[in-house]
């Protein structure tokens, strides 16, 4: 087939054969990867500015503080919400029906979710683009309400955008829980209590206790599969996080509207340190809550799907997910180790000791996943297995990088440097999380697209290596700059750290090229007609899909 034919018609993709659940999943996936491209371009703009005036090829406007910090403000909004939330939510709204053999509660609600997140992200981006609203994602009070530096209207548009994203998030949460608790199909005879006990992993804990005390298992067949439990738990944090972000947004909005109406409200009525505690408690539920729990669940799912075998130490994994949930609620103080007004006991207990538990919970997930894979060898080195291993490397690098900084001694010289944002956050997201998501994408691709053939395995491999090397390299060089004293929320226009920034920019370019290759491969697989067709109404309103997991495992043997 010629390139032009592939570009228009794809390989063997037929959008008319897709049911409603498949289509809504693919719509969100498309939007997610478009936002990913935007976030990669934004990242590259910042990298280029940091290389200094002799090398930076961009026009001077990009080095202007208004412009630069606007990009820095929307970069995480587009990346975390527009791309990652979108992709994760789509995957889970597909996986829950797939794993429970029950239809999704509402396709309309699933459409609402991706539309709200897309529109909300676009609004937040526009607020930064047109009005240079730039309080950064941290929204440290009272900066977001500082109308001497920012146009109030820009702030209002930004907050409305974030609020729409959170409304979409609530839609996702409702859809997930309504599907899990629906007493139909395999759960027809289950009570809500049984589903709740399983959802919180209490059956796993009781099974462990029964084993220790020499009694028969409490539950031989738990009501919910382990990946469903991970999604259930992670979604608790997603909900709490959405409440906090929405709460902070409402606070900012009220002050901005008051300012626009001519009222002179005193921003000092809100205690900045208390606000920081509230905000970080919620925001940290994204990083240390839902990401880690969702990722652990995804690893377990991928390991069992790839090997076709039961998960190693499943009861321990269930119990650990419960522990991870509790840990995620108590670790926020590691963001406040440089705040001298923060009580020392909170720094010690929440900031250091409880945070160190994440080494334990994530290390456990890594161990269980590796042993499950090892016991099933020999395995074919498929794309999904490669990406899964890449994801494990990513978190293997990123989690210790964070634990190192969550220490009162180290924090004094690393806080707010490039260390945490590059060696931890970017490696965790780009390598750890996204490689796990790519693995899930390759596993689910035949199921979601009705066995559409991927255009080129060579391009898939090129994407993998460029992405892996670029992701680790960018994080590593950025992290080294952090150790050299480079701040993360600062404008460097004179190339102060240019050697490391040039190396980071080269690696960043590899990520951008990898994204372009991936997108090209996908478009050549589904074709432009198919891409448009994804957004047309589905002829088949079915909201579930029932390929048996065993069929996936067969492909890896």
């Amino acid at each position: 087939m010629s390139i032009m034919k592939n570009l228009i018609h794809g390989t063997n993709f037929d959008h008319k054969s897709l049911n409603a659940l498949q289509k809504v999943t693919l719509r969100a996936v498309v939007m997610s990867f478009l936002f990913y491209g935007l976030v990669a371009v934004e990242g590259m703009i910042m990298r280029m500015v940091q290389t200094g005036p002799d090398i930076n090829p961009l026009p001077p406007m990009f080095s202007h503080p208004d412009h630069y910090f606007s990009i820095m403000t929307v970069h995480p909004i587009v990346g975390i919400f527009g791309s990652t939330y979108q992709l994760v939510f789509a995957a889970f709204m597909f996986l829950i029906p797939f794993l429970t053999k029950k239809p999704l509660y509402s396709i309309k609600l699933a459409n609402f979710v991706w539309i709200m997140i897309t529109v909300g992200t676009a609004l937040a981006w526009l607020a930064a683009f047109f009005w240079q609203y730039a309080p950064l994602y941290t929204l440290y009070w009272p900066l977001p309400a500082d109308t001497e530096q920012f146009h109030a209207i820009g702030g209002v548009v930004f907050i409305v955008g974030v609020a729409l994203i959170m409304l979409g998030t609530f839609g996702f949460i409702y859809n997930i829980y309504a599907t899990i608790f629906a007493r139909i199909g395999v759960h027809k005879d289950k009570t809500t209590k049984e589903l709740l006990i399983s959802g919180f992993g209490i059956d796993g804990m009781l099974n462990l206790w029964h084993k220790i005390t020499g009694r028969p298992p409490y539950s031989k067949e738990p009501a919910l599969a382990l990946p469903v439990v991970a999604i259930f738990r992670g979604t608790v944090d997603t909900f709490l996080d959405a409440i906090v972000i929405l709460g902070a947004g409402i606070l900012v909005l009220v002050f901005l509207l008051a300012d626009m109406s001519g009222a002179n409200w005193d921003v000092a009525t809100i205690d900045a340190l208390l606000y920081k505690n509230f905000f970080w408690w919620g925001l940290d539920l994204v990083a240390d809550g839902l990401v880690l729990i969702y990722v652990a669940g995804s690893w377990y799912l991928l390991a069992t799907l790839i090997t076709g075998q039961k998960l190693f130490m499943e009861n321990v994994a269930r119990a650990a997910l419960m522990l991870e949930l509790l840990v995620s609620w108590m670790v926020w103080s590691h963001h406040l180790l440089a705040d001298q007004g923060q009580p020392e006991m909170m720094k010690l207990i929440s900031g250091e000791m409880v945070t160190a538990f994440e080494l334990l919970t994530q290390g456990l997930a890594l161990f269980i996943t590796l042993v499950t894979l090892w016991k099933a060898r020999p395995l074919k080195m498929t794309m999904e297995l490669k990406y899964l291993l890449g994801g494990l490397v990513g978190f293997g690098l990123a989690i210790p990088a964070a634990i190192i900084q969550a220490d009162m001694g180290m924090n004094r010289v690393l806080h707010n440097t490039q260390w945490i944002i590059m060696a931890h956050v970017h490696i965790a997201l780009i390598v750890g999380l996204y490689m796990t998501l790519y693995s899930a994408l390759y596993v689910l691709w035949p199921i979601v697209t009705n066995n559409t053939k991927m255009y080129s395995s060579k391009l898939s491999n090129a994407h993998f290596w460029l992405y892996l090397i670029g992701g680790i390299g960018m994080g590593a060089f950025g992290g080294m700059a952090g150790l050299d004293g480079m701040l993360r929320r600062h404008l460097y226009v004179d190339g102060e750290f240019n050697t490391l920034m040039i190396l980071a920019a080269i690696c960043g370019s590899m990520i951008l090229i990898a994204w372009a290759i991936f997108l090209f491969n996908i478009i050549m697989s589904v074709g432009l007609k198919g891409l448009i067709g994804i957004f047309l109404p589905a002829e088949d309103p079915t909201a579930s899909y029932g390929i048996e997991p065993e069929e996936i495992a067969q492909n890896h043997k």
Partner: protein
Amino acid sequence: MTFTNSAELLSFHWVAYSIYSAMIISVIAWFGYNLTKKDAKSVFRLPFYTYMAFLVAGGVGHHIFTYNTIPWVSQDITRHDITPDASYRFEIAKHKWIGLPERITVQCGQTIEFDARSRDLVYGFGLFRQDGSLVLQMQVNPGTDVNGILDPNDILWTFNHNGLFDLMSTEYSGPRQYDDNGKDLMFVKNLVEVVGCKEGGGKL
């Protein structure tokens, strides 16, 4: 083993984390390679509880190690019971330092208290060496007590090495911190000078 300044700590950290990174990448690469082999045997068996003990030791041991080797940790926790050799208090408003001395000269081994107070936004207080590396930093949060007195943001620091240190705000406080060309308006060149130390650090 004690780190006498942050430069020593950062160098140690650079080496330790680089070794760890090379190790974890190699282990997963080796693991992935052997996953495809039917007759691959474990080079070593890592029992589950040994692995968990290793993680616990790593997580807890890291803090015990830093507490015993980094002097500013215990000093920070007990700082309100320590009498400093000198105190410097200043304020920040609208991206400007107020009441900042032109130069702070510190004798080797002296313990200095810096107390920065903000009238409006969240800022940062950070001292940097001439090569750009970080000596120390803290957040500077705004706020007042019931009497309207600005909340303190205080840090105690003992200087054991000679040097000239620049001051920067380590927290973003909006684009007005910079001029249109991106120049940092809160940057203060050579604010702190430490004298009287031996070449490798410590009192003469």
